[in-house]
């Protein structure tokens, strides 16, 4: 019998029986404290298991979920870590659930979304079959620190992996392109088609405008969003990678950011698992987005569209996506500052809320609703077009009551606010 697993499973059972929370991290915590090499030992015991790690600021959940759906169509047995449990203890917990008490895992593929900061530590414990690096944006600087630091840590951590490891990364992102170029791994790049990009000035939410090699300002021939696009360094010649753009594949979700997620998953499926385009297309067409990510909910007969919006790049993409749908959207903005949201709300000033100037109405709530209210006021949106509610339920009811028939209420919420609002809309907690 495998002691850490048996104990972990017992703990899970106890915590479920007595309803002590989802128990998604502490079975793993216990397994790791009994055996520091728990993850390493377990993967050695299961050499058939292909482990895929997905890291990046935005899009991890959508990309892993989509990959799983397509692989299952191909009859692979696949498991993922639970949403949010993306630190090392969450990964270990996931192994505890899926292994039998002898440590045997009867799955073919493990798909793990990984917290940006935890990737280096997890790579000390696990040798993955493939890694997807999606993107890197400023996010919760109080918790994650600066994006350059994360990029450096990633670069170091990748050096220790065997050469045959697949690295699937974003050729439109200068820093990830640089990491790919520097690594000795089997690298392939995804991106989006040039036709989906345009030539505009740098937006404000950018992090990498200077050449990662020689620190000269990069020339952008075209941009997709944030600091991504087609670029070259006028001094040292560093340039955009040739990318796979999967132009024939549909994007049933909205926004360029989801096209990136789809292309990342597709490239891995193609290169790592030999899945053909037809099967990928079928998976995408039938894809049901993860909770809170472009989720459609009917609440008291009203159409609600919920978009997790957690940092400047993600918020800007959500705003673009809803404007594509509705030029005068009815919007509910929810801003919290709890640990999973980041305690510093300064970042809302890096978001182009000015784009909401033609909104039908803007309703605001959340722990830091007044900070959001001030932000909206300074977009020159008149007092008659926005309102703040301290109580979330009230905000939802009032915002929904403003809807005409056929109109949709677009809810843009930070992480913990998204969970709160979902609880109210669905009447129960789903994780």
């Amino acid at each position, binding site marked *: 019998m495998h002691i850490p697993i048996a104990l972990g499973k017992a703990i899970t059972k106890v915590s479920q029986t007595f309803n002590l929370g989802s128990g998604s991290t502490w079975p793993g915590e216990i397994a790791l404290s009994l055996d520091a090499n728990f993850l390493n030992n377990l993967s050695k015991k299961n050499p058939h298991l292909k482990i895929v790690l997905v890291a990046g600021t935005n899009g991890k959940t959508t990309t892993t979920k989509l990959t799983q759906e397509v692989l299952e169509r191909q009859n692979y047995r696949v498991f993922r870590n639970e949403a949010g449990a993306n630190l090392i203890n969450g990964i270990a917990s996931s192994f505890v659930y899926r292994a039998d008490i002898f440590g045997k895992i009867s799955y073919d593929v493990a798909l793990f979304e990984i917290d940006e900061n935890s990737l280096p530590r997890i790579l000390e414990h696990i040798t993955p079959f493939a890694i997807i690096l999606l993107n890197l944006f400023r996010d919760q600087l109080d918790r994650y620190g*600066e994006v350059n630091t994360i990029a450096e840590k990633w670069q170091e951590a990748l050096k220790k992996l065997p050469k045959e490891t697949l690295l699937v990364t974003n050729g439109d992102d200068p820093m990830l392109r640089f990491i790919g170029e520097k690594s000795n791994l089997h690298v392939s790049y995804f991106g989006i088609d040039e036709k989906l990009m345009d030539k505009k000035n740098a937006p404000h939410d950018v992090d990498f405008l200077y050449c990662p090699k020689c620190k000269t300002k990069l020339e952008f021939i075209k941009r997709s969003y944030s600091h991504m696009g087609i670029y070259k360094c006028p001094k040292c010649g560093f340039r955009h990678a040739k990318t796979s753009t999967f132009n024939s594949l549909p994007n049933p979700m909205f926004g360029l950011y989801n096209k990136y997620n789809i292309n990342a998953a597709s490239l891995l499926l193609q290169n790592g698992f030999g899945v053909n385009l037809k099967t990928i297309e079928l998976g995408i067409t039938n894809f049901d987005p993860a909770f809170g990510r472009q989720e459609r909910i009917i609440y008291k007969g009203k159409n609600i569209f919920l978009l997790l919006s957690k940092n400047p790049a993600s918020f800007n993409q959500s705003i673009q996506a809803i404007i594509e749908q509705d030029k005068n959207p009815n919007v509910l903005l929810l801003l919290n500052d709890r640990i999973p949201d980041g305690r510093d709300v300064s970042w809302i000033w890096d978001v182009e809320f000015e784009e909401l100037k033609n909104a039908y109405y803007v309703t605001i709530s959340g722990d830091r609703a007044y900070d959001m209210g001030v932000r909206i006021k*300074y977009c020159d949106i008149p007092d008659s077009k926005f309102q703040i509610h301290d109580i979330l339920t009230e905000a939802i009811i009032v915002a929904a009551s403003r809807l005409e028939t056929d109109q949709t209420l677009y809810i843009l919420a930070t992480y913990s606010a998204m969970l709160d609002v979902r609880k109210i809309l669905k009447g129960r907690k789903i994780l």
Partner: protein
Amino acid sequence: MKAKNLFPKTYNLTIGWLYPELMSTYGDRGNIIVLQKRCEWRNINVRIEKISPDTEYQILDTCDLFFMGGAQDTQQEIVNHDLFGKKGSALKKKIEQGTPGLFICGAYQFLGKYYKTADGKILEGLKIFPSYTENPGENVNRLIGNIIIEPNSSTYNLKPKTYIVGFENHGGRTYLEDKSMTFATVKKGSGNNGKDKTEGIMYKNSIGTYLHGPILPKNPEIADWLIEKAVEVKYGEKIELEPLDDSLEQKAKDVVVKRNS
């Protein structure tokens, strides 16, 4: 939101935004938006001059108010390189002449005498502010969290008991050579160094501070003070800005104060 123009003439202000692409990581752009809107709402003409490494140093001479935000290390290196030279001297001259300015976090540190890095390296500063900053090392915690300060009332006209709120996130500890120059006293949080209760510096008409948040949206009285000073220095006339309805800003401030007391 517009206030009437009660001024007998039109004022024109140029705000010099130092390195918007490089030094603007923590939503510090909000400070520029607030300065711009609060001028416009009073019918003061305002122009934003973005200063980048390609900008000629003479441009700094045309600015009536400066702003510079915080940055990440790599970006800061590019800026430091650019400011040692004619641009730095031009900025120093303007600040010494009384042109008002707001310098946040990394910018505040860089205007001081030096910055001692976590591994003990000394990086020269611009030597405008009589202050210096030391990073106590990688294994000492950064100072992170909501911060509430009370401005040093002798430095400028604020109503008594006005609190300033923001969010700080810094590894370096800053020390003032003359503590009477402190911008504010720490009520909650760490401030300059987590020890002596000082926060920021007030040098001539320029403010150096660790407050992100950003600082001006929730503390519009400081924005107005900077605008009044800019007009005063440029036109040689003392003006009093028409008050605006700041009830929303006050509520946002109250949330932070209430939660942290």
